[in-house]
């Protein structure tokens, strides 16, 4: 089971979210509670449209819940202004989405450096941090390539590097492997896993891809607006 000595890096309490109004109103999340501990990878499964992305977006401060409380590294996020949310995202949260969404014409190095540039890290220092993470992901030779010259798998690994270069406390990965083939998917997931263990990052990863189960420390299931532990694989995750 979860290592109890580590305090949760992120926590959702009683989160609800609906879309639409009146008779078209559809409650996607119903009073969800969730703890994400340090250094552990949580896999979020559930049928299409069950609300996985909604959970991740709320957790990543990209969307606001209708009700409930979000806590990131001990801080309760209330009705914060967008500027404050942006700064918190930059400092503490990394994102990987289904598509890499790299900035065209910028080299891989520049793309990975973006969050550090936004943070205002000095150029030299930022470059060395980028090189370090590129080395860890075995892709130092791609540093000077623009996204146009990279394969889908390489692009996605650049996105992983960009998400982790700031050493975030929380990593949010929404179907990071769904556009990749088997090998690339495994490589990407493995990269996420090893970095998050090394950096102590709390990871939540939403996926349909059963092959990623082997990387999970914990698997959660989302259905009908409710979150349940996956009973079958839960034990396997802690092996």
């Amino acid at each position, binding site marked *: 089971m979860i290592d109890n000595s580590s305090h949760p890096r992120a926590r959702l309490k009683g989160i609800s979210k609906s879309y639409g109004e009146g008779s078209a109103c559809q409650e996607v999340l119903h009073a969800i509670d969730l703890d994400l501990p340090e250094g552990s990878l949580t896999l979020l499964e559930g049928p299409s449209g069950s609300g996985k992305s909604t959970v991740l*977006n709320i957790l*990543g*401060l*990209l*969307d*606001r819940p209708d009700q409930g409380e979000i806590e990131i590294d001990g801080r309760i996020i209330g009705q914060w202004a*967008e*500027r404050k949310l*942006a*700064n*918190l*995202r*930059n*400092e503490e949260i990394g*994102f990987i*989405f289904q598509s890499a*969404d790299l*900035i*065209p*014409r*910028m080299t891989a190095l*520049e793309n990975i450096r*973006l*969050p550090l*540039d*936004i*943070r205002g890290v000095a150029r030299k220092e930022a470059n060395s941090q980028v090189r370090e993470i590129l080395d860890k992901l075995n892709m130092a030779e791609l540093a000077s390539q623009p996204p146009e010259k990279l394969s889908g798998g390489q692009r996605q690994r650049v996105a992983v590097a*960009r998400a982790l270069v700031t050493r975030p406390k929380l990593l949010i990965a929404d179907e990071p492997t769904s556009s990749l083939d088997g090998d690339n998917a495994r490589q990407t997931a493995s990269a996420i896993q090893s970095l998050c263990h090394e950096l102590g990052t709390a990871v939540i990863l939403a996926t349909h891809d059963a092959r990623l189960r082997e990387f999970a420390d914990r698997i959660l299931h989302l259905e009908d607006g409710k979150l349940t532990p996956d009973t079958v694989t839960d034990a396997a995750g802690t092996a």
Partner: protein
Amino acid sequence: MLSFRFSLINLLRQKRRTLITSMTLIVGLIAVNLFQGYQSDTVESLAETAAYGEMLGHLGVMKEGADTKGKIDEITYMFDGPELAKTLAVIRQDPDVALAAARMNLSGLVSNGKNSIIFLAVAMDPAVLQDFQEKFDWRGEGQPLVAGDLTEGQVAKGLAEIMEVDTGEFLTLFSTTVKNQMNAVDVQVKATYPTGSTATNDKFMIIPLALGQKLYRTEGAHQISVVLKDGVKLSEAKARLEAQLEQLDGMPLEVKTFRDMSAFFKGVEDIYNMIFGFLFLIVLVVVLMGVFNTMTMAAMERVREIGMLRALGMTPNRIRRLFGMEGLVLGLVAGILATLGSAGIAHLINISNITYTPPGISGAVQLYIAMVPGKWIGNMIFLALLAGVVSIFPAQVAIRCQVVDALRHS
């Protein structure tokens, strides 16, 4: 700098669109610059005309009220002989003054023995007149007045035709003296010349100061024309001269610039300024609408990318700055090209020697565009800054919404 890097990348992303927007900017700015260069040259040469051609000098010194009450009570507001000498002495001490000369503004009747008609005349020292007139190409018949002439005069072409006189022939001038008696003097027509203005071509005359003083029976004059040394600032020289003239107790004087004295100059300058302002406004509106439109399209295309940047922690203000910088860079690059283009086109126009005849001027003038780099760079910076400012607003489409909605955009 991050936003500068983004600007370049984004501007190169839609090359065609950037090119078209730049062209609007360039064409608009060149039109503004060329007009400004043309205006500058025209006003400059009008200033020359006023200072030397109208024989006003850069500054005019006269008794206070000479321009207003002096029109009715001419004698009271003229310098008499001793006053003129004292005032000239003070003015000539000023180190900025190149030349100071007495000037009379005469009027009366001119006769050829058969008919008579109203005339206006300026009377000045022929040596000074020679200096002034040598600044322009001589376009009359005969020879202009030179130092030493005493009884000769230059007669406007139209007036000479009405009076049916040629060079060498005589006219008689009638007027009242400072003691209010009738007087007449003869003047020999030394030259006939076009005055350059249809308003004066049928009544104007230039005569030696001595002849004018003889007609009015005075040693004095109406005013003093002051020519400043090269590079002296008009307003500063005026202030200094005013201060120095204070020492002449009991004789209140005023100092006027040629801008104030030449109604023609002032009128033309005002009209040019108005046309320029209007042109600049139109160009500004067209160009800024173009930039706004381009940046709106860019923002729409980039909503998703901006969503990503927001997810990475870019604040709304930072994103606005990104857009502002993009407009600024676009404006500056186009502005620099436009400034260079303006210089090139101005040069071509100047060497191709195009002439035209403006209204109210009795002769062809060369179309000349003055290079005014200071003003052109000012226009460029102004336009670029405004392009930056209007580019900020389109960013709103990607900032207003939740990050997740921006990311969902495709």
